[in-house]
């Protein structure tokens, strides 16, 4: 009796889950074709190199692109960069999925254009990791309805690396050294001055 109640509750929760926003990735058809300029294993530098992406609707697929209103192209983490990093986890429910955290371009979907092309300068806040590129199509309600990606289903092929900036600057490092030196020098300065004052006192 109790186990039946538990199963019923579980099913209710799962049903509620899919009702409560969050399209499941596994339900999306792969109807968009996308390619990106980096080759397999190529290493790019954040803040310096560019990625050119081109995407379009795959005409050979048995589907219609009538419901596609917006399109978003994103930079996504490959599985090797997700290991031991729960904040980059892939989850089927897209409202909780953290795989794709950087937007390359987002614009309205234009069905008349066969092949969209966009050149993107890799931003300086992109961390050092291995990536692929994915595109989502959204309907008028803002829900994902289709996708495309540069890699295969297992996310093993056509991955490229980006080397992040260090964030270090010479001017910061010089300022650090100056302030540190000031701190240590003023401490010992005070100490020695007070010691000599106390010595003078005891001599009286």
């Amino acid at each position: 009796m109790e186990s039946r109640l538990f199963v019923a509750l579980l099913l209710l929760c799962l049903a509620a889950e899919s009702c409560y926003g969050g399209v499941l990735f596994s339900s999306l058809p792969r109807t968009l074709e996308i390619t990106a300029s980096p080759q397999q294993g190529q290493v790019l530098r954040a803040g310096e190199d560019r990625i050119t992406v081109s995407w379009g609707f795959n005409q050979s697929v048995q589907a219609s692109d009538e419901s596609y209103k917006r399109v978003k192209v994103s930079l996504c983490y490959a599985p090797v960069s997700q290991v031991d990093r729960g904040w980059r986890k892939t989850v089927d429910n897209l409202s909780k999925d953290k795989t794709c955290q950087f937007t390359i371009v987002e614009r309205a979907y234009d069905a008349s254009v066969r092949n969209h092309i966009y050149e993107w300068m890799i931003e300086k806040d992109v961390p050092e990791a291995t990536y692929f590129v994915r595109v989502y199509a959204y309907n008028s309600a803002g829900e994902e309805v289709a996708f495309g990606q540069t890699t295969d289903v297992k996310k093993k092929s056509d991955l490229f690396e980006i080397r992040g900036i260090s964030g270090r600057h010479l001017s910061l490092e010089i300022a650090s050294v100056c302030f540190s030196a000031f701190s240590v020098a003023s401490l010992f300065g005070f100490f020695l001055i007070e010691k000599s004052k106390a010595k003078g006192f005891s001599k009286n």
Partner: protein
Amino acid sequence: MAADTANSPGSSMHGVSAKEQAFAFAVTSPTIPTDPTAKFKLPVDSEHKAKVFDILSLANPHMTTFHLSWLSFFTCFVSTFAAAPLVPIIRDNLNLKKADIGNAGIASVSGSIFSRLVMGAVCDLLGPRYGCAFLIMLTAPTVFCIPFVSSAGGYIAVRFMIGFSLATFVSCQYWMSTMFNGKIIGLVNGTAAGWGNMGGGVTQLLMPFIYEIIRRAGATPFTAWRIAFFVPGLLHVIMGILVLTLGQDLPDGNLSTLRKKGEVTKDSFSKVLWYAITNYRTWVFVLLYGMSLGVELTIDNVIAEYFFDRFNLKLHTAGTIAATFGMANIFARPFGGLMSDMAARPFGMRGRLWNLYILQTLGGIFCICLGRASSLPLSIFFMIILSITTQAACGAIFGIIPFISRRSLGVISGLTGAGGNFGSGLTQLLFFTSSRYSTATGISLMGIMIVCCTLPVTLVHFPQWGSMLLPARKDGEKSKEEYYYGSEWNEEEKQKGLHHGSLKFAENSRSERGKRVGAAHTPSSATPVHV
């Protein structure tokens, strides 16, 4: 919140002449005589320690010391936990894994295990003013090391070194004990430490705010977080200079000057250490503090992530909740100290011990509840009660520590403080590193550990005051405070008169008998004044 005498209502003559200044927190019992020869702004006892705690005053030296002390400790808490709210940026910049972040958290609290031990000895030998100044100004360079960090190893090493600065806790508590009378020391120590600990909460709001301003000024994220660390670094330098210029070790002056004048004798470190480690009460309190402060620091490190993951909150919402946990310190810890002092008025030391036991055990129970709660409002409710009880327990512990020993106060404070940090490292290692159980289960298990490890409070017994379950000795030599504090000096030292400071303290500590104080016989220890 006027704290009046423990005598029957209406019997106090305080304020009757209408010329006496009324203080919110004051020792007004006639058993602690005011020294009429002293020329301080606040009324003082025979050791020139203040009998009143006037928060709004800056009276030199007592209240100035209070403000310098808690602000230095606050600054160190801000810099030690400054990285925690910025971890989402740092982990991308340095390509960190979960283990690296966890290890950095453990490293940040482990550094001060060692430094708190050393600080106790430093305070006994060099005085709290230099102890505090040296530490805060020598750890400023470690905060300034942040702009150089470029790997997980470097990050862990720098957080470890910054963590050394948490030893300012020991100098803070020690300094308060030299400036304020034993009857109000619970409240004073609790307030100073609580307001200092609050830094761990304030930093969770402050650092993201500074980071945001710097980013909007045009810096990229991976550079902006490094620049943000200049703020805690500069705070270190400023506070160090203020302590050196405005502070003094003792009410009558600085330690080195007083020693040269022959008024304060220099003690032997090995003796001081011996009397600290051979007193079993020291070790009980090391364990207890590990289960109160240790738990508080652990929660500081894991709670934001817990709320973020379990309830799918936004990062800044989780950060705000994490901040409220740490910021409850502003009243929770002083409250614990105040309750300790209030319990001591009718019941003496026995009241202090019961107060501590109840607070800390409640903390353990609410920790178990927090781990089991599965709704957000209930979780927040349990977390808030947990913060109040745990932090109040910290305050209660340091209401008792000044009475364990007079000679080795510094070393005992240091050992206890180190125990707090050790408890934090241990609980993080046991319950929050392994993936065998969830964070929620880890929190509940930690609660069970708290309840079990608080039981040793029942073992702490003072012959002259009693313990939780046993009463004090009624008569005989051992029933006198002078015997307890005098037993820390051998005959040779007593011949030289080195123990006079302890005797003075014994006289002032008679208040720990509670209502029995009136029956106590004032001994003829009226020896010449040697501080």
